């Protein structure tokens, strides 16, 4: 608990929350812009469309946002050269835990803000009916899990490398890979494709009538495995990160 409190003290005045807010606001602006004037059909399918748009926006932005967050939290130690000092006071595992929990707090806040925004936007646009809460709850949990898996990967890299360019480039490359994978298939076993696997809504576009129809996806066994893979990545990155951090030469 003391280590966690210390973690929050270290990032005081670092404006990490402000940075995250600014980046999430770009996502909000994108969502606002993407369906700014819904017609009657848009209003009828509004809630389900939101569940389609959100993972697609996340797959592009979240890998980079998570790399920024992890880099900000890890860079405090690199710049201050504090690993040696901290490890004499606390066990290295505790410091790693504190970083993970600190990041998780930010991720929780980001995910909550995303869903609150989507719901408020839906009501403001006068979408028909109400959101289907069970799908929204599932989307929230899966979104959180995807962000956490990416954060753990980025934290691992940011802690290991003094040169923060390496984790940041991995984040940008991950965003790009996720975006490209979206055009190939709607699931992926890669950590950056988790948002695609977790998208519960699919789109059917008729080129002749130009009508878009959204529907809830029925997962095949392979797609379910891809969703399960998100949680596997969390365990893998957490375990590997903890082991490597404990063994890190200070």
């Amino acid at each position, binding site marked *: 608990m003391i280590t966690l409190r210390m973690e929050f003290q270290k990032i005081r005045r670092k404006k990490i929350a402000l940075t995250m807010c600014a980046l999430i606001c770009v996502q909000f602006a994108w969502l606002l812009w993407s369906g700014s004037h819904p017609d009657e059909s848009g209003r009828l399918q509004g809630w389900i469309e939101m569940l389609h748009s959100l993972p697609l926006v996340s797959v592009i932005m979240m890998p980079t946002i998570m*790399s920024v967050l992890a880099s900000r939290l890890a860079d405090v130690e690199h710049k201050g050269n504090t690993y040696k000092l901290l490890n004499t006071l606390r066990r290295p595992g505790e410091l790693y835990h504190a970083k993970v929990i600190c990041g998780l707090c930010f991720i929780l806040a980001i995910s909550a803000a995303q869903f609150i925004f989507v719901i408020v936007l839906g009501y403001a646009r006068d979408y028909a009916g109400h959101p289907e809460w069970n799908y929204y709850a599932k989307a929230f949990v899966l979104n959180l899990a995807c962000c956490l898996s990416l954060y753990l990967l980025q934290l691992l890299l940011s802690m290991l490398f003094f040169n923060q360019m390496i984790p*940041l*480039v991995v984040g940008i490359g991950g965003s*790009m890979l996720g975006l490209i994978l979206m055009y190939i298939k709607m699931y992926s076993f890669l950590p950056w494709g988790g948002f695609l696997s977790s998208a519960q809504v699919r789109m059917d576009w008729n080129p002749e009538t130009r009508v878009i129809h959204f529907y809830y996806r029925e997962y095949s066994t392979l797609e379910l495995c891809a969703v399960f893979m998100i949680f596997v990545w969390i365990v893998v990155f957490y375990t590997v990160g903890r082991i490597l951090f404990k063994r890190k030469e200070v």
Partner: protein
Amino acid sequence: MHTSYIRAVKAESLKLKRSPVWLAFYALPVISAFFGTMNYKLNIEVLQSEWYSLWSQHTLFLCYLFMPALIGTYCSYLWRLEHTRHNWNSFLTAPLPLSSLYLGKLTQAVRVSVLGNLWIFALFFICGTLTGIQSPFPREALEWFLCGTLGAVAVCCVQLFFSLVIRSFSIPIGIALAGGIFGLYMTNHDYGMDYPYSIYCLGMRANNPNMEISISTLVVNSIGYMIVFATLSIFYLRRHEIAAN
């Protein structure tokens, strides 16, 4: 000025020696080219403009979203060398004019961006040849390259300024990503030429290779952004008290 500029460039090259930061500029376009070519081959019935179709498949996402972030990463790295430890002390007391020191950094950023752009075009040519496109390589490609490079230099100036003012390594990269995304909006609303992150994409004709753009506006706006942000950066270096960490 000339000698001090060369000395500054040499000093920057020494600082970057054995640092594989340029690798990202070669790795990411490969991913984009690989998947772009695959998508082109899979949808060859719809994408019938040969080189032009392949070009938009290669560059659409790369230029709009990821090249600004990559340039941002490199610029952040250039200033990070000074932001860490006590390096500001030696940087600011170096027996060279501040403008030369700044131009040394800018030259490195521009060099990597130009080489990155060349690599994009090389991949485009290689992939087009391998996929068996019969028509000749488009002559306009030289214009795309020159216009794109000019836009990339403007992005370098903007990002160097942000990375100088903001001590954090990652925040300017977030700004670059957000800038690239906002560029989509600006281009869609016909303000692309007024916005630095869109100038690069418009210059490269990433969205539509057949697009007609005003070259004079692109040149004037790019040079305008370069002058404004380079002046701001040098002014910041001269006037602002930069404390060593």
